[in-house]
C-alpha cells in the first residue's frame, strides 16, 4: 500500500492537517501536499480511467507531465475539469471527483473495452462503422462521443475573475531550479531587468531531492541563499506558480500565474496571464524522466522512479512497501537508496545494462540492495494495483526467470530535456546518441529580427545531467545574455553517473503478446503494438503515426510518451531516431485557462459600448437599442404599450408631419487638413471636393481600388485648407484607417493630416416641416433659407451653445444637422426637446431613419451596397466626376464586367398586392444555370412598410432594371413561393424635392 511515512516530507507541514474530499470520501493531508501526495498518503493509488479502454489509472509522475491523475475539481462556478492532481495544491475543503467512468471509479462498465481491445487497435474507427451510412450520425458517433471526453462540461458560470500583466524585461528566465536561479543571479548582477518564473510553488526544482553539495552546503541551503540574493536585487522580479507557457516571434513570451488556486479567496483574481516582451529568454526548464516500455507498465503502482523519490522526500509518502526499481541508467538507483533509507523494501533493482558499476550502483550494492543487471521486466502482475513482476533477460523475448512480489515499480528510461519553449518559435533539436535524448542545437536557435538567437537553454533543458555541469552552464548563459564575462561557478559535488543504455522495448526482443501490453501513452491508450501497426500500414511519418494512433495528443501532449513512441516508430521503419524527428511542439507548455486568456475583457468590458453624450437619455426614454459597430443606437423609442413596429410608424409620420429629433452623433467625422487636402480628397472621392467653396456641403462617394462603393457622406469645406468628411457610423474607424493607409503607404509626400473627431462632437438632426421653427425658437443664428440654403453650413450659437449647423437632409424633409461640443450634447438635446415641444417634436430611432430614406430613394451603405456594387449600379453617375484623370476605383470601374450592360441596377420595387417584400428576397429568372441552380435576375436591397404611403416599398438591384420600368417580376417569398413585384422609380416620396429644399 501507499502511505505516509513517519518521518520526512520537506514540503509538508505536519502540524497543519488539511481535509480534502475525493469521490465523496474525506482524506487527511497536510499543508504543502499536492492532491496527488495527499491521495497517495491514504493509499488512493487508483485515480482515474484511461480514455479509450477505460483501464484503471494510477498516478505515474509528480509534476506537470502527469498523464493519468486528472479530476473534476471543485463545484458550481468554481468547477474545473481535467485538473492535474500532481500540480493541484491542497487546501481545506478541496473537493475532487475522478473522471471517465460509469458507474464508479472502482467498477467501470467501459472497462469492457479492455476485453475488446484486440478489436480496437489504433485507427480501428477508420476501418469500421461504414455501413449503413446513416448509422454514423445516429448510432456510431453518439456512442463514440459518449465514451470519449474526460472531465465533465462546466455547467455554472465562472465565478472567478482573471487579469493580465504586460511586462518588458531584458532577460526572462523560465524555471526556478538550480540552473534558473544561477542564470538569474549571474544576469541579475549586470543590473538588467530580469524576471524569473517558476511553475511550482517552490524554488530549486528537484535539486533538494537529490541533494548534491553546493559550495559545501546542502542544496536546500544553497537554494534558500540564492533566492535571498535574488530578492535583494531591485532589478530582479521573482514569481512562483508561474508557468512559462509559450515563446513567440520577436521575444514575446507568455506566462500563466495561478494566484488563488491553492487558496481560493473571494475577490481576488484566479489566474494572471503575463504577456512578456523579453530581450532574451533563458529556458531553465529541466528534464522529464521517461517511462520504460514493458508489459503492464500502465498498472497502478508503476511510477516514474524520480516521482517515487519525490513523494518520499518532498511529502514523506511511500508508494509501496515493496518497490522494484527498473532502469537503464544510474539515476534510478537514487530512488532505491532513498526507499531503503526510509526503511522500505527494495526487493531488486532490475537494470537492463549488462554492466553497471557507477558510483550510485556501487553505493546501492553496498547497502545490500539486490542488483540484477542485463535483466528486464517481462510483465507486471496485477489489475488495479501492482502485485508483482516477472523478470527476464533483457536480451531475450521475455521468458520469465523469476517472479518478485511487490506493490510498486519505480521505472526510469532516462531523461528528456524540456525543449518545448526552445522549439515553439523554431529552435531545432539534435539527437544526442550518448545521452539518448533530443537536446537543443545551439547552432539553430529561434531567431529574432536581427537574425540572432533569442532563446538560451540552460542546465537540464540543455542536456546537462550533473549538478556541476548545470551550474557551469548557468553561469555561462547568465553572463552571455547580460553581456558580461562569466564569473565564479559554485562548486558542486554529486555522484558520477555511468552511461545510459537506450531501451525502447523491454525486453528488447519482446513478443507481440507483450508488446500489446506495453503502454506508450497512458491517457489515450496507445501501445507499442499500435505504433508498430501504424508503421506497417504506412503511417511512417512521425506526424502520421501520432495522428493515426493519437499518441501524444492527450492533455499531457506526450510529455512522457513522445520520445518513446518515436523511438518505437524508428525501430519499426528501420530509420534512425534523428531522421524520424519529433512532432511539433506547440504552446502552451501545459494547458492554461481560457479565463486567463480572455483576462478582464468580459461582460461589460468585452468590446465596451461606445456611448454618445445622449445615450443616458435614450436609456431613460424607452429606447430599444440595436448594436451598430461598437455603438448601440436607439432602434425606436417605445411609448406605452407600443410594439417596435408601431413606434417606428409613429416616428415616421411625426417627422413627415411635425418634426423629429435624431441622435446622429455616431456618424464619423474626419477632419482632413493641409495644403494637399483638396488633392487628397479628389483621389478618395469619386467627385471633386477641391473646388467646393468654403461653407458649402457636397455628398461624396468613396470606392476601393476595385471600384466598389465603400462609404458615403456629406463633405463640408470649413476653411481654405480644411474639410470635414462625414462617414457612416460603421465606417468612421475603417475610413480613417483607409485614409491613413493611402497617406502613409502611397502618398507619403503629400502634406495632409487626418483627425478623427467623431467623439468630440455630438450631432443632432432636427428633421421635419417644423425644423426651422425649432431652431428659431432656440435662437442665436439666422437659419432662414436665404442665409442658410440647402447644402450649406454655418457656425454660430443656438440656445446659447456653440453650434455648427449643416443644412442637409437624409429624409427628404427640411432638415438641419447641428454639431455641438460633446460636453454640450445632452444640454443641446434637452434644449431642442423643450423648444420643439410646441411643434410636436419627438425623438426617432434608426429604423425610422431607414424608412425615411427609403421612402425618398436614398441608398444606405451596407444595404444597397455589399462590397460588390459600384456607384454606377446605383444610378449615382451624377456623383462621379468625368473631368478627373483619376480617383480610387476609376480604373476598376472601367473593367469589362463593370461596364456590362447586364449588370443589376437600382430601381424601386412595389408588390402588386401592397405587401412588404421579405428581407433578402431574390428576383427569380427563367430556367437554371449549368450547375442546376435557378437563375436570378435581381434582389431586394431595402424593404420596408411605408407608413407615409400605407404600403410596402422597396429598392433593389435588377438586371437592366432602369430599362424595365413597370414590368412585373416574381420575387422569392420563402417556402418556395413567390410574390409579384413591379419595377418602379426608386423615389417614392416627394419626387420634386420641394420639401427637402424648403
Amino acid at each position: 500500500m501507499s502511505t505516509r511515512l513517519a518521518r520526512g516530507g520537506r514540503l509538508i507541514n505536519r502540524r497543519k492537517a488539511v481535509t480534502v474530499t475525493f469521490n465523496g470520501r474525506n482524506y487527511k493531508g497536510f499543508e504543502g501536499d499536492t492532491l496527488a501526495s495527499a491521495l497517495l498518503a491514504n493509499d488512493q493509488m487508483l485515480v482515474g480511467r484511461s480514455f479509450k479502454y477505460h483501464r484503471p489509472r494510477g498516478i505515474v509522475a509528480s509534476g506537470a507531465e502527469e498523464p493519468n491523475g486528472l479530476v473534476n475539481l471543485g463545484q458550481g462556478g468554481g468547477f474545473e475539469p481535467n485538473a492535474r492532481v500532481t500540480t493541484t495544491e491542497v487546501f481545506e475543503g478541496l473537493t475532487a471527483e475522478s473522471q471517465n467512468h460509469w458507474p464508479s471509479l472502482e467498477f467501470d462498465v467501459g472497462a469492457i473495452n479492455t476485453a475488446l481491445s484486440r478489436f480496437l487497435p489504433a485507427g480501428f474507427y477508420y476501418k469500421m462503422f461504414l455501413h449503413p451510412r446513416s448509422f454514423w450520425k445516429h448510432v456510431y458517433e453518439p456512442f463514440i462521443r459518449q465514451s470519449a471526453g474526460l472531465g465533465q462540461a462546466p455547467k455554472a458560470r465562472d465565478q472567478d475573475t482573471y487579469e493580465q500583466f504586460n511586462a518588458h524585461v531584458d532577460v526572462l528566465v523560465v524555471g526556478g531550479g538550480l540552473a534558473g536561479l544561477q542564470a538569474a543571479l549571474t544576469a541579475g548582477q549586470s543590473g538588467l531587468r530580469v524576471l524569473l518564473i517558476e511553475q511550482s510553488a517552490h524554488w530549486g526544482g528537484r535539486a533538494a531531492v537529490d541533494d548534491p553539495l553546493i559550495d559545501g552546503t546542502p542544496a536546500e541551503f544553497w537554494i534558500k541563499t540564492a533566492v535571498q540574493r535574488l530578492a535583494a536585487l531591485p532589478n530582479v522580479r521573482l514569481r512562483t506558480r508561474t508557468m512559462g507557457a509559450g515563446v513567440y516571434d520577436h521575444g514575446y513570451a507568455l506566462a500563466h500565474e495561478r494566484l488563488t488556486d491553492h487558496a481560493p479567496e473571494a475577490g481576488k483574481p484566479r489566474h494572471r496571464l503575463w504577456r512578456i516582451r523579453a530581450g532574451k529568454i533563458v529556458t531553465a526548464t529541466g528534464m522529464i524522466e521517461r517511462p520504460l516500455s514493458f508489459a503492464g507498465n500502465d498498472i497502478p503502482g508503476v511510477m516514474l522512479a524520480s516521482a517515487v523519490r519525490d513523494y518520499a522526500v518532498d511529502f514523506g509518502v511511500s508508494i509501496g512497501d515493496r518497490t522494484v526499481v527498473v532502469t537503464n541508467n544510474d539515476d534510478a538507483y537514487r530512488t532505491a537508496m532513498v526507499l531503503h533509507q526510509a526503511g522500505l523494501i527494495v526487493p531488486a533493482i532490475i537494470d537492463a545494462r549488462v554492466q553497471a558499476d557507477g558510483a550510485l550502483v556501487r553505493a546501492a550494492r553496498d547497502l545490500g540492495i539486490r542488483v540484477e543487471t542485463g535483466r528486464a521486466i517481462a510483465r507486471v502482475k496485477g489489475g488495479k494495483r501492482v502485485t508483482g513482476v516477472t523478470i527476464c533477460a533483457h536480451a531475450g523475448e521475455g521468458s520469465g526467470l523469476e517472479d518478485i512480489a511487490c506493490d510498486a515499480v519505480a521505472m526510469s528510461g532516462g531523461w528528456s530535456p524540456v525543449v518545448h519553449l526552445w522549439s515553439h518559435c523554431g529552435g531545432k533539436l539534435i539527437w544526442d546518441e550518448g545521452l539518448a535524448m533530443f537536446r537543443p542545437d545551439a547552432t539553430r536557435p529561434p531567431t529574432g529580427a536581427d537574425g540572432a538567437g533569442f532563446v538560451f537553454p540552460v542546465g537540464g533543458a540543455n542536456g546537462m545531467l550533473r549538478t556541476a555541469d548545470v551550474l557551469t552552464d548557468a553561469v555561462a548563459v547568465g553572463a552571455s545574455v547580460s553581456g558580461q564575462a562569466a564569473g565564479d561557478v559554485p562548486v558542486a559535488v554529486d555522484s558520477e553517473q555511468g552511461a545510459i543504455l537506450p531501451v525502447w522495448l523491454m525486453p528488447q526482443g519482446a513478443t507481440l503478446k507483450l508488446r500489446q501490453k506495453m503502454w506508450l501513452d497512458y491517457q489515450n491508450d496507445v501501445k507499442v503494438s499500435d505504433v508498430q501497426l501504424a508503421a506497417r500500414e504506412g503511417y511512417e511519418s512521425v506526424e502520421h503515426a501520432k495522428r493515426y494512433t493519437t499518441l501524444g495528443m492527450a492533455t499531457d501532449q506526450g510529455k512522457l510518451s513522445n520520445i518513446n513512441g518515436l523511438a518505437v516508430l524508428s525501430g519499426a521503419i528501420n530509420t534512425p531516431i534523428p531522421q524520424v524527428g519529433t512532432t511539433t511542439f506547440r504552446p502552451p507548455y501545459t494547458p492554461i485557462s481560457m479565463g486567463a486568456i480572455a483576462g478582464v475583457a468580459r461582460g461589460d468590458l468585452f468590446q465596451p459600448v461606445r456611448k454618445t453624450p445622449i445615450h443616458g437619455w435614450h436609456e431613460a426614454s424607452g429606447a430599444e437599442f440595436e448594436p451598430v459597430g461598437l455603438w448601440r443606437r436607439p432602434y425606436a423609442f417605445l411609448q406605452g404599450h407600443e410594439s417596435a413596429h408601431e413606434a417606428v410608424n409613429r416616428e415616421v409620420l411625426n417627422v413627415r408631419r411635425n418634426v423629429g429629433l435624431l441622435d446622429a452623433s455616431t456618424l464619423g467625422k474626419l477632419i482632413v487638413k493641409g495644403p494637399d487636402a483638396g488633392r487628397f480628397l479628389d483621389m478618395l472621392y469619386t467627385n471633386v471636393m477641391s473646388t467646393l467653396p468654403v461653407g458649402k456641403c457636397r455628398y461624396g462617394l468613396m470606392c476601393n481600388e476595385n471600384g466598389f462603393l465603400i462609404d458615403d457622406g456629406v463633405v463640408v469645406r470649413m476653411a481654405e485648407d480644411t474639410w470635414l468628411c462625414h462617414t457612416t457610423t460603421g465606417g468612421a474607424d475603417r475610413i480613417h484607417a483607409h485614409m491613413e493607409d493611402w497617406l502613409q503607404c502611397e502618398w507619403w509626400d503629400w502634406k495632409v493630416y487626418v483627425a478623427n473627431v467623431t467623439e468630440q462632437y455630438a450631432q443632432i438632426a432636427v428633421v421635419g416641416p417644423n425644423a426651422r421653427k425649432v431652431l428659431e425658437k432656440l435662437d442665436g443664428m439666422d437659419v432662414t433659407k436665404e442665409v442658410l440654403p440647402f447644402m450649406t453650413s454655418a457656425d454660430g450659437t443656438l440656445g446659447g451653445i456653440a453650434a455648427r449647423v449643416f443644412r442637409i437632409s437624409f429624409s427628404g424633409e427640411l432638415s438641419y444637422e447641428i454639431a455641438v461640443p460633446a460636453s454640450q450634447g445632452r444640454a443641446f438635446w434637452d434644449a431642442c426637446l423643450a423648444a420643439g415641444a410646441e411643434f410636436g417634436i419627438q425623438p426617432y430611432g434608426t429604423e425610422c431613419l431607414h424608412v425615411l430614406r427609403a421612402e425618398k430613394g436614398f441608398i444606405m451603405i451596407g444595404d444597397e451596397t455589399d462590397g460588390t456594387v459600384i456607384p454606377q449600379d446605383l444610378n449615382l453617375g451624377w456623383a462621379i466626376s468625368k473631368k478627373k484623370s483619376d480617383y480610387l476605383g476609376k480604373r476598376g470601374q472601367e473593367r469589362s464586367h463593370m461596364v456590362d450592360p447586364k449588370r443589376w441596377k437600382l430601381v424601386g420595387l412595389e408588390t402588386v398586392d401592397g405587401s412588404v417584400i421579405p428581407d433578402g428576397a431574390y428576383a427569380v429568372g427563367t430556367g437554371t444555370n449549368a450547375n442546376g441552380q435557378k437563375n436570378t435576375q435581381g434582389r431586394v436591397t431595402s424593404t420596408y412598410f411605408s407608413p407615409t404611403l400605407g404600403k410596402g416599398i422597396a429598392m433593389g438591384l435588377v438586371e437592366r432594371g432602369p430599362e424595365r420600368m413597370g414590368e412585373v417580376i416574381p420575387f422569392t417569398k420563402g417556402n418556395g413561393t413567390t410574390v409579384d413585384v413591379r419595377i418602379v422609380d426608386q423615389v417614392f416620396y416627394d419626387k420634386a424635392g420641394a420639401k427637402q429644399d424648403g
Partner: protein
Amino acid sequence: MKRYSVFAVAREALRNHMGWERAWRSPAPKVRYDAIIVGAGGHGLATAYYLGKNHGIRNVAILEKGWLGGGNTGRNTTIIRSNYLQDSSAAIYEKARSLYETLSQDLNYNVMFSPRGVMMLAQTQHEIRGYKRTAHANALQGVETEFIGPGRVKELCPIIHIDGPRYPVLGALWQPRGGTARHDAVAWGYARACSDMGMDIIQQCEVTAVHQADGKVTGVSTTKGEIACDRLGIVVAGHSGVLANMAGFRLPIESLCLQALVSEPIKPCMDVVVMANTVHGYMSQSDKGDMVIGGGTDGFNNYTQRGSFHHIEETVRALIETFPMISRLKMLRQWGGIVDMTGDRSPIISKTPLGNTYINCGWGTGGFKAIPGSGWAMADLMAKGEPGPLAEEFSMYRFREGKFIDESVAAGVAH
C-alpha cells in the same frame, strides 16, 4: 486493396492485426507520368482521385514536399458547410458537401462525416438581413438552409448564451446537413484510394523547378530527381506563389497565418457547429471531446505557421461571451497554418499562362469543406483542358475583368 469493414477488423484481430496492408505504397518516382500533381494535401489527392475515377487517367504522381495531409488539411477546424451566397461558390461547396455525404463509402475509409448541423449566428440587424438573403439565395441554389430564431438556436445548442449583454443572439442561418469530418482521414482515405488505382504518392519530394518547351510544361525537377509529365496540376495552398514563380507566372495571392486552438477534452456538451461572425469566433466539439476553435489571420504576410497570440486572445474572449462555460476550460494546444488568400477571398481553379499547367489555390480560410468538390472540378479541368461549370467562374483571370466572387456579405470572418 483489401477492403475495410467490421469483418475485416474482426478477422485481423484474430491474427493480431499482422495482415493489414499499407494504406498507400511508398514508391520511387517513375521517369514520366501522364499527370503530375504537386501537393498531396486534401485538394491535390482529391484531384488525383477524380482524375482516375471520373476520367480514367491513372498514370499519375502526387508529389509532396513533406508528409501527405500535413498542410492545411491537417490543421483546420474541420467545418463543412455550403451556405454560400454567390451562385458559383454555393455550387462548388454544395458539390463538395454532397460528396462528403458518401465519401466514407466511396473511399472505403471512414472520414467520419458528421452532418450535425452548422449555424451562423446573427447578432445585429444587419446580419439578420444578410443571412435572410443567403437563405433566399440558397433556396434557389438547391442548398438546404433556414433562418431560425433565437429560441431554436438555444434548443440546438444549449450552452449558447442567448441574452449576452453585448450582442444578444437574434437568430441564425442554419444548415442542418453541414457538419464536420475527421480531417486527417480525408487525406488518408483519398491517398489510399489513389494508391490503389496505381497512382504514386511520393512524399519528402520537393519540386525545385518546372520545365517547359514551346509554352507547355514538360516536367519538374525534384529533390528525388527529374520527372516528366504531360500535364501539371499545382495544388499547394500557402506556397502557390512559390510554385507559380517556378512556372513563370504570378498569382493574385497573399499568404497569411491563420490560427486555431483546442481545449482539453470534456464530455459531449455541444452537438452542432456554431460560427459567430460579429464577435469573430467559431467552435465545435470533436468526437474526442475537445472544443475546436478557429481564430483569426495575422495582418501581415508570412510562412511561419505560428501567428500572433493576440488573435487567440480575441477569439477566446469572443467565445467566452458566446459560451460562458468555456471560461473554465483550458487551452490545450494552439497552432497555425498558411492560408492563401485572393483579392475576393474566393478560390482559383484555373488554366495558367503555361500550357497544360493548371492551378488550384486561394481557398483561404475555408478549404477543407471544399476538398471533394475542388478535386472534382480540378480533375475535370486537367482532363479536358477547359473548365467545367463548377470551375468556370474561378479562373485566375477574373480579377482582370472585375468578375469577383465576393462572399464578404455572407461571412464576416471566415468562410
